[in-house]
């Protein structure tokens, strides 16, 4: 499997690497190949298949379109000149400037195209919220249930197996160890009828 590293250019030999005075047992290519093998095994497991099915069902939006151009903030949206510009002269007097400033301050955003400048995923999230019954706390109860399902799909066992392929500087990273385990985070959330819905 080709690596993204510059050492992965075709035909370029990989140099044995040293870390903490010891040669690294596996090259980056080998590590990536081993990760791919483990992930292939993981994908065959029943736990993976079940989790994937649940997450697909949970997802409000599928697919992704690569962005083509930057969305400009609202200050850049409108190419029209500012109010009062048509009547100003190059040698604008102070009171003309003051008038232009007053008009610029009084400008209210026209809100054109504002909702359309959301990503499909953001639109889907808002649409889902707007479609829920108008009962206090209902949206968050359903979202907590969604989180609970997500946490169950975290596959902590496979995460640890895959982590064994990490090179020493990633495996031994102290802050990584401090991160909360999925089960701990999930314990705060409640299970709910979502489980039955997912079975259908």
């Amino acid at each position, binding site marked *: 499997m080709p*690596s*993204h*590293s*510059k050492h*992965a250019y075709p035909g370029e030999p990989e140099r044995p*690497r040293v*870390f903490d*005075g010891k040669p690294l047992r596996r090259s*980056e290519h080998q*590590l*990536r190949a081993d*990760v*791919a093998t483990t*992930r292939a095994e993981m994908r065959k497991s029943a736990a993976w298949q079940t989790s994937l099915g649940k*997450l697909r069902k949970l*997802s*409000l*939006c599928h697919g992704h379109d*690569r*962005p083509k151009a*930057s*969305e*400009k*903030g*609202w*200050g850049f949206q409108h190419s029209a000149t*500012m109010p009062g510009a048509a009547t100003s002269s190059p040698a604008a007097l102070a009171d003309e400037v003051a008038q232009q400033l007053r008009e*610029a*301050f009084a*400008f*209210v955003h026209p*809100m054109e195209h504002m*909702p359309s400048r*959301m990503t499909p*995923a*953001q*639109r*889907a*999230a*808002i649409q889902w*919220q*707007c479609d829920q019954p108008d009962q*206090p706390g209902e949206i*968050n109860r359903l*979202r907590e249930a*969604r989180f609970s399902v*997500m946490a169950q799909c975290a596959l902590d066992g496979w995460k640890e197996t*895959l*982590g064994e*392929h990490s*090179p020493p*500087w*990633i495996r031994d*990273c102290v*802050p990584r160890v*401090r*991160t909360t385990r*999925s089960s701990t985070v*999930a314990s705060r*959330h409640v299970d709910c009828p979502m489980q039955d819905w997912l079975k259908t």
Partner: protein
Amino acid sequence: MPDARLVEDLIVGTPSVGLCPDSGMFRADWKPAALDIDALDHETWHRDVDSQLRSRARDALRHADLVTLYERTMKEVKDGWAKSLGSLQDAKAFFGDQPFREMIRFAVEQKGEIRPCDNGRSSLHNLATTLQERLMVDSADFPARAAALYVELLGKDREFAFKLGTEDIASAYRRMPCCEPWYTVFAQWNPHTGSVEYFRLQGFNFGLKSAPNAFNRLSVCIRELANRLLAVCCTSYVDDFCVPEPTFAAGGQQLLRDLASLVGVPFAGTRLGEHRKSVVPAFANPFLGVQHDFTPFERLRLSYAGVSESLVEKLGLSLGSIIEKRSFAGSAGPLKLAGQLQFSLSWCARRFGRAATQPIHRAGRAMGRHETLDKVTVEALRFLRDLLVDPVSKRPRLRPRTFEYGARKSRTP
């Protein structure tokens, strides 16, 4: 998700230099490297680094800054993000036959605090980096856009209030693992021992061209998971997240925090609102330097947004100092200043005053930071200073902009 290699890169690490992966998440844009890092003479560079750091340390005026910078690095060491390698000889012993190339650490002042930055430009790391995509980030008007979509979907007459909260990932660039730790080494002056000290770093350096793209793969992944699976309305701008939601959907920000912990990239603080960078949902809060105020939203379907008064005051003081010195020496530089002015003006005075930023742009392109400013540039700076801050009352003149979401029908008594 199109970023199919993210999991593999989180396990093995992703390159910080050379050919960086195309995640497919951002705009395709080929930016080739100008040189090959392995073809560089690292030994000569090691000597240059030593000489540069010793030369800077001889400047007595810099001593306090060097002490503060060293303290900041020690905090990173304590938190587990950096590890001391010792002297150059110790670093060579650590990496053995593996060549390494260090960056020089320097201090950047941000919001009154010293932030360590590693100079990937002078070390040629950045010239040796090929990027295949250009970063795409959201803009500060996101809360207003989200509110507009809620109004469009629910209709103008559905009663609801609107709040926004923000989150921040601490030590963001350190969270994305790097596959070549010999290229993320940095060197700095140790003011206590009077010698150059080498460090290795977890993740990416602040100052590497590859760092924003690498980290944003992680940031965008969290945002998309929150949107698609948890139905949380949120956006991200590098390490800053914003959750603007109606009060009937309260709780989204806590879920976003839980999701980030689940993914292993927790937000600042152990609880919502505990850390100053975890801002609890409120009617009025800032996002990316813009203060949004949704207080009148429920009753009038209005919100206000504009740059904060403190930012305008700071910008006015900065302009005053440049005018007095007749040079950009000691400032953030003309191009950064022009960017800050354009941002502040566009949020408050639309296109007004933008023409006056042209001489500043020109100065950024053509002048050195220490050159004396010409009359035209000084006049433009004076105009902009007086536009930002009233010369008589000394109060910020810029006011927030109004956003109207469509008037509601009058309520029946």
